[in-house]
């Protein structure tokens, strides 16, 4: 905290570790995310990205190190706890119900109601209008909020999940591989909404294994490898090439090239 006195990070991990029995899943990882910043967590499969996400989302408690939320040292004991502190996580499976209309999905679990007594009912009109307006604010112009969310493309569904988190007052948005299953164009769309969320003042933690996507929107880059932190850079400290190199594990790549050579 000494080198950055001007701003308190929304979420700060310092030297955090997590063990499952005798398996070291995460060791000595530090990370910070500021309002209006995107912090990217990069790493290959098994690097510890999922463990890190689970700690921030409140699914697992960390074993060592310190987790601070808005400067206050704390432990997150449940996903609800994390949500109440303004940390919203959008998982890969998105937590949407495919057969339900977009507007019902948007408010699922937090439905606004109107009327009294036995006639207390969903404020369907407000829900439809709000869904349309919130999605529009993120730059998504949906044809019809009544269509089942399963009919939207993967990118659009991702965006609805992001818009939902923003609407329900998230301060920190944790995105788990939002572009992993998407094509190039759809990925671009999702990254645009990540930027839109950032511009609205949210802190974003973007988990990805694609350095190109990370470099398009990231302000900070945390590199993980086999559960340890390989590097923690701000954008001006590192180029895309260096990031890609570190990410792929430059030496490993060289060895692989050698192995794959003909003859």
């Amino acid at each position, binding site marked *: 905290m000494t080198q950055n006195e001007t701003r308190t990070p929304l979420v700060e991990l310092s030297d955090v570790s997590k063990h499952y029995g005798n398996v070291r899943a995460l060791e000595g990882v530090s990370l910070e995310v500021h309002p209006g910043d995107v912090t990217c967590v990069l790493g290959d499969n098994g690097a510890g990205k999922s463990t890190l996400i689970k700690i921030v989302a409140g699914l697992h408690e960390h074993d060592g190190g310190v987790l601070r939320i808005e400067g206050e040292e704390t432990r997150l004991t449940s996903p609800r706890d994390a949500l109440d502190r303004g940390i919203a996580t959008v998982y890969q*499976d998105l937590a949407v119900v*495919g*057969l*339900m209309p977009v507007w019902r999905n948007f408010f699922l*679990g937090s439905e606004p109601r109107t009327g009294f007594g036995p006639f207390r*009912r*969903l404020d369907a009109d407000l829900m439809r209008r709000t869904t349309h307006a919130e999605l529009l604010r993120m730059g998504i112009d949906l*044809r*019809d909020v009544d269509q089942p969310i399963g*009919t939207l493309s993967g990118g659009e569904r991702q965006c609805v999940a992001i818009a939902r988190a923003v609407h329900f007052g998230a301060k920190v948005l944790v995105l788990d591989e939002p572009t992993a299953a998407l094509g190039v164009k759809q990925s671009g769309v999702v990254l645009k909404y990540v930027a839109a969320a950032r511009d609205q003042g949210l802190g974003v933690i973007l988990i990805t294994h694609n350095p190109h996507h990370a470099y398009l929107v990231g302000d900070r880059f945390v590199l993980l490898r086999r559960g340890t932190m390989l590097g923690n850079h701000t954008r001006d400290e590192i180029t895309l090439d260096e990031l890609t190199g570190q990410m792929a594990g430059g030496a490993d790549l060289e060895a692989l090239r050698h192995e794959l050579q003909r003859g």
Partner: protein
Amino acid sequence: MSAPPTSSDKLPTSSDERILRTSPLRRLLSRPELGSVVGALAVFLVFAVAADGFLRAASLSTVLYASSTIGIMAVPVALLMIGGEFDLSAGVMVTSSALISSMFSYQMTANVWVGAGVSLLATLAIGAFNGFVLTRTRLPSFIVTLGTFLMLTGMNLGLTKLIDGTVSTKTIADMEGFPAARALFASTLTLGGVDFKITIVWWLALVAVASWILLRTRVGNWIFAVGGNQDAARAVGVPVEKTKIGLYMGVALGAWIAGQHLLFSYDVVQSGEGVGNELIYIIAAVIGGCLITGGYGSAIGSAVGALLFGMTSKGIVFAEWNPDWFKFFLGAMLLLATLLNAWVRKRAEATP
């Protein structure tokens, strides 16, 4: 469109011009109950032609009565199915509810309303038990309710023989409160010279209440969500366990109403009744457009499914066909309606 659109033309408004592409026909086609409505119309036409007197008011009243006794249970069973679960104990639970009501009143020489009240609590407890075991053990509902189905079947017979010495209950027609209870659960209303059973009123009321719950309340949103994607529902804070237990208690409430009708209309209850009816309720719900995997369907659809049932079972009699063919027609209708539903849903959901 000779003039090029200006940029402001493209600005989206709250009523999006592209929504116009969704024609009213497409809206209609995307309704879950469409398959059953088409099927019901077809069956109606067949019997209108084939069966003399099918179109007489008295015959239609008989059809509606047969439909209502199934429909009263098909409504909560449909809700449960939308919530992603089955209840195989629903059929015998109706008999259990009637037996409890009758035997309690008789043995305690109490007012029949006391028996009905005790029966309501006991039946709701059976429903809660189903839901509780399901959510606690996470076993498939097929297994859990198959277990309660067998247990209730055994208990219905065993306890009745133990207490009354025979397989049916003693008459309670001379007991206090019977006329009033009969008026509520088993009376006949005359409307424009035609007699209608009061179960039709119960049935329509249940359809209305269930539709209101499904489409316009928070609980309805939760029912669709726990059936459509349980994990997602849990992740956004929907009380999945409570919703499911509530749905099972809804089935129990339906079983209580149907059970009291059984008791107060026939006065004595045969303890072996009800076996097999659970499948009829499920079939009515499925014909009505409920997705067997959950997350999709409607209460009105279950009513149309029940109506199809009533028309076929009575229509065969009016047409003087061999009633042995009833099950055959049923199976064929189930297959056709389900296929039609699946096809319609695919068409309606295809991204335009």
